[in-house]
């Protein structure tokens, strides 16, 4: 029996996470984080999501609170997100939210309130290696695995974190929610970035905050194939949405030169590289002396590579990784470290 603070987004995973812990007899308190006050229809933080979380907590017979971390979210997630696009990087705001909000701000709040443990509804597991060090492990539901977005967790955070749905599949989560009669049982999974409205998308969100600038789209020989009115929205490796339809060859973005307003595209083979430069490299429990696999997007494939200086040297040529993306290192199914592509 421990006192556990469960982060409840109003979705089915965290609903069931709270239910499982309560069923085990723990003293569970639910909390919903109010992070975003603006318009959104894709993620959480809406009044109806808070109501869902509160209603589930009532059904489970646990206390429910709302913490307003909106200022922190603005400072640590929104501002860096906008700045990254402005500087030609492709950020992952969910990771920054985990790093700064859920596993820093919330954990410190939990400390102050006397909770030894916190829990979330992420599909991932916490594993123990032979040296007694903890790692984020792949969730039982491989298709829903969220270990990638939790890669930044260190030993102290992992010691105090519970991931109750990491051992079960999403299907089982929904079954349990249905059995318990939770109103979130059939709620669709959250999609996309929680603070981006589907109407205007990224373009409207960024356009309200930074000036979007045009660029010419050139092929490898410098011939102009088209143009874009918002180079900030273009990402390395991107194929769709460039307005180059009607062409026989598939064009992938291979380089972005924002100051000169040039986006270079090429064939798929041009998007491959041998190494990816990194910043902010950190290991969960020291650098392991094993063959690593490396994942560069939330549900991307894991490919073998070595860390040499501050870069991944790929065993086989790898698609270019957009600057700003998280690069996560695995030993088998366990996260052993992470970095950000430069």
């Amino acid at each position, binding site marked *: 029996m421990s006192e556990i603070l469960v982060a409840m987004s109003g979705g089915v995973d965290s609903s069931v996470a709270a239910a499982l812990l309560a069923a085990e007899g723990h003293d569970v308190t639910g909390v919903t984080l109010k992070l975003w006050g603006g318009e959104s229809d894709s993620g959480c933080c809406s009044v109806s999501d808070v109501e869902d979380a*509160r209603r589930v907590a009532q059904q489970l017979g646990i206390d429910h609170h*709302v*913490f*307003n971390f909106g*200022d922190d979210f603005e400072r640590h997630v929104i501002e860096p997100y906008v700045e990254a696009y402005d500087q030609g990087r492709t950020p992952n705001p969910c990771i920054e939210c985990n790093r700064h909000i859920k596993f820093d701000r919330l*954990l410190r*709040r939990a400390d*102050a309130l006397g909770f030894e443990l916190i829990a979330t509804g992420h599909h991932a597991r916490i594993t123990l290696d032979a040296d007694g060090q903890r790692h984020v492990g792949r969730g039982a539901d491989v298709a829903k695995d969220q270990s990638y977005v939790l890669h930044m967790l260190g030993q*102290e*955070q992992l010691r105090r974190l519970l991931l109750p749905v990491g051992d079960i599949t999403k299907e089982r989560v929904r079954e349990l929610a249905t059995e318990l009669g939770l109103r979130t049982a059939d709620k669709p999974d959250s999609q996309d970035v929680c603070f981006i409205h589907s109407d205007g998308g990224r373009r409207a969100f960024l356009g309200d905050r930074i000036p979007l600038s045009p660029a010419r789209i050139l092929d490898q020989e410098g011939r102009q194939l088209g143009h874009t009115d918002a180079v900030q929205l273009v990402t390395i490796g991107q194929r769709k949405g460039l307005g180059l339809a009607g062409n026989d060859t598939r064009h992938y973005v291979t380089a972005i030169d924002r100051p000169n307003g040039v986006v270079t595209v090429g064939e798929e083979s041009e998007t491959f590289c041998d190494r990816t430069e990194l910043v902010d490299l950190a290991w969960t429990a020291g650098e392991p002396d094993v063959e690593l696999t490396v994942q560069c997007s939330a549900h991307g494939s894991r490919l073998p590579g070595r860390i040499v200086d501050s870069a991944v040297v790929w065993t086989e040529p790898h698609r270019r990784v957009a600057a700003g993306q998280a690069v996560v290192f695995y030993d088998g199914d366990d996260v052993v470290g992470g970095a950000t592509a430069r």
Partner: protein
Amino acid sequence: MRPVAVEAMTALLTDGLGNPSGAHRLARRANQVIDDAREQMADAMGAEPGEIVFTGGGTEADNLAVLGALEAVPGVPVCSAIEHHAVIEPIEHLGGRVVAVGHDGQLNLDALAEALDDDVRVVSVMLANNETGILQPLDAIADLIRTNAPNALLHTDAVQAFSWIDLASAAARADLISVSAHKFGGPQGVGALVVRSGADLAPLVRGGGQERGRRSGTQNVPGIAAMAAAATEMVANRPTETVRVAALRDRLADGLRAAVPGVVESGVPEPTAPNGQLDRANKAERSNKTANMCHVCIEDIESEALLFLLEKEDVLASAAASCSSGAMEPSHVLAAMGYDRQLAFGSLRLSLGYPSTDADVDAALAFIPPAVERLRQAAGTNPLVSSTVAR
């Protein structure tokens, strides 16, 4: 709820009641209940029975006052920046003028004079603020309206003030006065608006013409009876209760200021000795606030966390107004008073009332200082700094 209100309400819930607008015997009895309640509310609020309009709470009364005045005679609405959302939201929605307050929470009368002209149709200034308890100079405001905005009605939201202030004198010059039953020991969802005879007000809700056509819809008879019973008892006890509760509040506020460093009490100047120097031993002067309100901002803590800890000790307080999600938002009242946003996040609103006792104050003084200390220590030591791997 006050027992007299509970009795009045429950008796009517089981008694056969008709629709007060009907004609038969049971309807006439319901109508008599309403007539009695109307007289009681008129006495309690310093108004005539025909001036009382029953509403579904304080927010409706505020909306009816502001929007009803504008509907009857189009013009510009004006309010203070510290009004309750029930007033400031409709006025901002209509593009009205919002007048600044000083750091002491008092309406800036020069700014009000600037905002007033012949186009102004309604001026809404609350008698006492709901977060801070700070009182507004309604007579001086009425004087300004008479000279600068002769076409305007004066509305006052007296929801917070009614339990502590005699409206017959303090709000004598207001044309429209809102109250809400749950603030004085009545039920939730019932309120009243005084509409002085001669004040031109259109209804928001049209229909069967109840409440002299100013608020259609079958009245909440048990709720109205309970509100009237609560108001009558509250007004009878108010002279003694105000003195008793003010003493409790002073002990609470002075005790907090003495026990917790970095406490800023809104609208209350730092106590000074005769030589003008700061003198914490001196009692603070709080005659500009309602007797029940202890409102402070505590440096370097977040009230969201403090309230959580206090609730565990059965000390139930609030910070400011809550938004619909239940999250605490930084107070627009403190922002208007020029408080730093960070300090406003540390606001603590300890409202006392007729049920409050010495033991309640003892409990608050026993639990709040250590809880604040605990939060400050937690804030000072980041548990992750030592454990997060170097980056």
